[in-house]
Each structure stands twice: as structure tokens, then as C-alpha cells.
């Protein structure tokens, strides 16, 4: 065991030295892999962020219930009593037409328009916070529509459903992109290892002649492929992190206009680790394919 570990450690150190000896080539390879991985990774990050927003909104779907203009105080009280008894209604808030107009006056863009109005065109409304899934929500909507003095029922989270579908589409697109660029990573590694085998042709031949096992000869190439993949993954994380920072300045400004502190958040540690492991595995795979193809061609004579 310690013999096996020592050989791997020695190989790892040797591989690092080799990478350091050709800094330009290493940097170029790592950049290519990094950019290739950064594209789907960035897409994935955006989707993850949008998904969490959609989930937060979808978890507490709101229903706005607009009353008919002729509804009076007693109608409203009766309706409030009915609504409280309905299953699926968690909380209830009444917004009178006066209150609604006051709120509109607060927003600076509309205050001029509202000042020109002679009568209040707004209806009284209830805002219901509901529980349950989308099926329960639809049943509730039908029930509410049947109630007397109800003019209009609006599920405020309908757009969330559309967003969910859109996100689903986005995820598929990212998956396709990721698959394609994973193939690119394997191809880049394949070629790097091929060149490395060619430069070390003499060493491989001498090694075979004086008693190196095939496993010993292959090992540094596997290390090189995996390490290059992992470095590429690290570069991709760096690129996405940097882009996120640049974007966040604009996003925060924008979301403050909507009274929110929304900004993009980065992957957690386990996601980062998974990406590095994935990139290293792809690098290893490329090295494996290249070594199987090219190493047997070097046979001492």
C-alpha cells in the first residue's frame, strides 16, 4: 500500500514539474478547457439562481380577488367570513379601494396620472395566501369564481409556472452544451497526451527496455490528463466567479428598483468539488483513450 502510494505521489510531483516546465502550453490548454467548461457552468449557475427565485415565489402562491363595484360593507364582511372557512387559504388581507389608490399615489411615476382622475376606478380586493400544489390552487380558483360579488380572480403565480417551463428548457440546453463541451475536453486531453507521448518517446522506450511495467509507463499520463482537467475546471470556476461579480453590480442596481436585494450567488463547496472531480475524470478518460491508442506503438526493437 505504501509502495503504491509512494509511486503515485512521486508521479504526481513529476507531473506538476512537467506542467511547470512548459508554462505556456499548460496555460493555453488550461484556458481552452476552462472556457469550454465555463460556458455550460455559467448557464447552470444562472438557471440555479432563477430556479431558487421561482421556487421561493411558487412556495407561497397568492390569489388576488377583485370584488364587483357594487359590493358594500356587509357583502365584504360576509365574503371575508366565507373565505376564512375555505380550505387552502392560509391568510387573508383586505385592501380597500381607498387604500389601493393611496398605494398607487406613492409610486412616483403614476401620481400625476392619478391626480387627474375624478373618481376612484379601483375595486376592493382580497389578497389570499394559499397552501397546496397547483391542482389545489386551480380547484380553489374555481370555488372563488363562484362566490357572489366576485368580479375577477387572479392567480399571481401563473407566471411562475411559465418560468418553470422556461427553466426546464434552459436546463436541457445547458445539458446539451455541457455534453458537447465535455467531448471537447476529452479531445483536447487526447491530443495533449499524444504530444506528450511523442516528446517522451525515448524515455518510454528505455523504460520498457530496463524493466518498467506498462502500468508504470501509463501512470504519469493518467495523472497529467486528470490534473490538466482539474486545473481546467478550476479555471472555469474562476471565470464564472469573475463574470458573476461583474454581472452582480448591474443586477443589484436593477433589483433594488424592484425593492429586492436579489443577486447571483455562487456554487457551494460540494458543487465546486463535484465539478473539479468531473473535469478530472474527463481528463483521465481522454488520457486513457490516448494512451491505449499511442503507447503500444512504441515498442523497443
Amino acid at each position, binding site marked *: 500500500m505504501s509502495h503504491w502510494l509512494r509511486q503515485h505521489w512521486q508521479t504526481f510531483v513529476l507531473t506538476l514539474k512537467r506542467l511547470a516546465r512548459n508554462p505556456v502550453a499548460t496555460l493555453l490548454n488550461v484556458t481552452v478547457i476552462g472556457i469550454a467548461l465555463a460556458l455550460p457552468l455559467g448557464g447552470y449557475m444562472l438557471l440555479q439562481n432563477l430556479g431558487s427565485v421561482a421556487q421561493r415565489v411558487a412556495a407561497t402562491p397568492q390569489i388576488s380577488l377583485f370584488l364587483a363595484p357594487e359590493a358594500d360593507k356587509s357583502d365584504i364582511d360576509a365574503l371575508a367570513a366565507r373565505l376564512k372557512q375555505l380550505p387552502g387559504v392560509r391568510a387573508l388581507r383586505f385592501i380597500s379601494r381607498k387604500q389601493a389608490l393611496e398605494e398607487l399615489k406613492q409610486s412616483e411615476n403614476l401620481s400625476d396620472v392619478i391626480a387627474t382622475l375624478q373618481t376612484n376606478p379601483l375595486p376592493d380586493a382580497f389578497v389570499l395566501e394559499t397552501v397546496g400544489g397547483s391542482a389545489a390552487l386551480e380547484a380553489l380558483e374555481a370555488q372563488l369564481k363562484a362566490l357572489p360579488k366576485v368580479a375577477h380572480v387572479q392567480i399571481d403565480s401563473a407566471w411562475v409556472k411559465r418560468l418553470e417551463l422556461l427553466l426546464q428548457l434552459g436546463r436541457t440546453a445547458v445539458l446539451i452544451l455541457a455534453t458537447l463541451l465535455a467531448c471537447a475536453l476529452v479531445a483536447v486531453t487526447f491530443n495533449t497526451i499524444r504530444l506528450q507521448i511523442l516528446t517522451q518517446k525515448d524515455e518510454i522506450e528505455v523504460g520498457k527496455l530496463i524493466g518498467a*511495467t506498462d502500468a*508504470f509507463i501509463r501512470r504519469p499520463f493518467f495523472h497529467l490528463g486528470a490534473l490538466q482537467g482539474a486545473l481546467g475546471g478550476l479555471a472555469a470556476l474562476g471565470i464564472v466567479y469573475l463574470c458573476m461579480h461583474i454581472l452582480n453590480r448591474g443586477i443589484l442596481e436593477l433589483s433594488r428598483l424592484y425593492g429586492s436585494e436579489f443577486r447571483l450567488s455562487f456554487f457551494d463547496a460540494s458543487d465546486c468539488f463535484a465539478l473539479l472531480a468531473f473535469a478530472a475524470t474527463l481528463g483521465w478518460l481522454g488520457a486513457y483513450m490516448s494512451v491505449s491508442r499511442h503507447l503500444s506503438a512504441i515498442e523497443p526493437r
Partner: protein
Amino acid sequence: MISFSQVRKSYRGGHEALCELSFKVEDGELVFITGRSGAGKSTLLKLIPAIERPTSGTVLVNGQNIGSMRRAAIPYLRRNLGLIFQDQKLLYDRSVFDNVMLPLAFTGHAYKEAARRARAALDKVGLLAREKTNPITLSGGEQQRLCIARAVVNRPSILLADEPTASLDSTSAAEVVEMFRDFNQVGVTVLIATHDEALVQRLKPRVLALAQGRLEP
């Protein structure tokens, strides 16, 4: 012990390098293989570490049959042999010391132990002072001595040398041959292929004379 019996080696295209070759080399012997170029000396030496396989007949090295040996077993056979090649096969991208360290990397020695052995081998061939230099800066005789150091660092029981004195002046050649004699005296079996008649005349060793792939009587 090395034993050839009825060994034939023919290459694709019908060229017959060795035919009906039978001989034995006991442990601790010093044997010269002579003959003109093309006589089959190199082919004979390549059969022992399984660089080539016999077309027919049996090659036994320390009891192992080379003809039927599995590919995966070959590295372990070669670790017990010291090989000195006609074209030297030194690596010029690393120091003299690292060239000698190479065979020890496969066997998984701890660095300290490996370095100690490598320096001992370099000391034996008189190159310890040059350990940090690149082999390209060494003279022909020194390069050949470096090959010997690399071949013996794993303490093999058999040394095989293909034309070790071919490119050397007579003084360097004599030095190199003396080294082989020294290793032979501590019990290492040594096989040297050469066409240097003067060398053979001087040492009077056991000689296997090859001509057109056959042993001359």
C-alpha cells in the same frame, strides 16, 4: 543460467538471423560472442531479455522460458538483467544521476535508498564527480561507463553488452572491459557481443563465434 536449444530466429521477409543455435552459459561465466556484423550477435542478445522472441526452439533464462513468457512478466525478467545497448539509449533531458536513478523508479525504492545505490554505481564506474552534468557533455568512454552504471544499479545477476567498445579508443575500451571483468569476478554472468578481435585475443575468454546465424566450431 542461460540455455539456448535449437533456437531459430527468422524475421519477416525470410531473413534467417539465427538457426539451430544451442549453447549453455553457466552462472558466473564471462562469455564473448564474436562474429562479423550481420552474424546474429545482436539478435542473440535480444532474445535473452525478450526484446525478440525465438521463432522456434527454447531460450531459458534462470529457468524461465522466454518463448512462452507472458507480456506482463517481461518487465520483471528485465529487472534482473543489466542491459548495455549498442546505441546506448541514454536520456539527454536529465542529469547523469537521474539516468542511473531511472531503473530504481520502477522498483519503488524509497528515494534515499535509491540515491545511495545510484551514487554507489556511479562511484564504481568513476563518474560520481559528474553526477549533476548532462550526459551529452560526457566523452564516449564516459557515456559507455554511464550505461554500465545504469545497467548494474539494480544489481542484476546477468549483464548483457552489445558492442560496448565499438566507438571507443583502445584505452577507454580497455577500461570498460576491465569493469566487466570486475563484475564477473563478484559472480555476475557477463555476455559481451563484439567484433573486436584484439580484445578477444588479449582476454582469452570463452568465445561463442557466430557466422551466418550458426556457431562456428
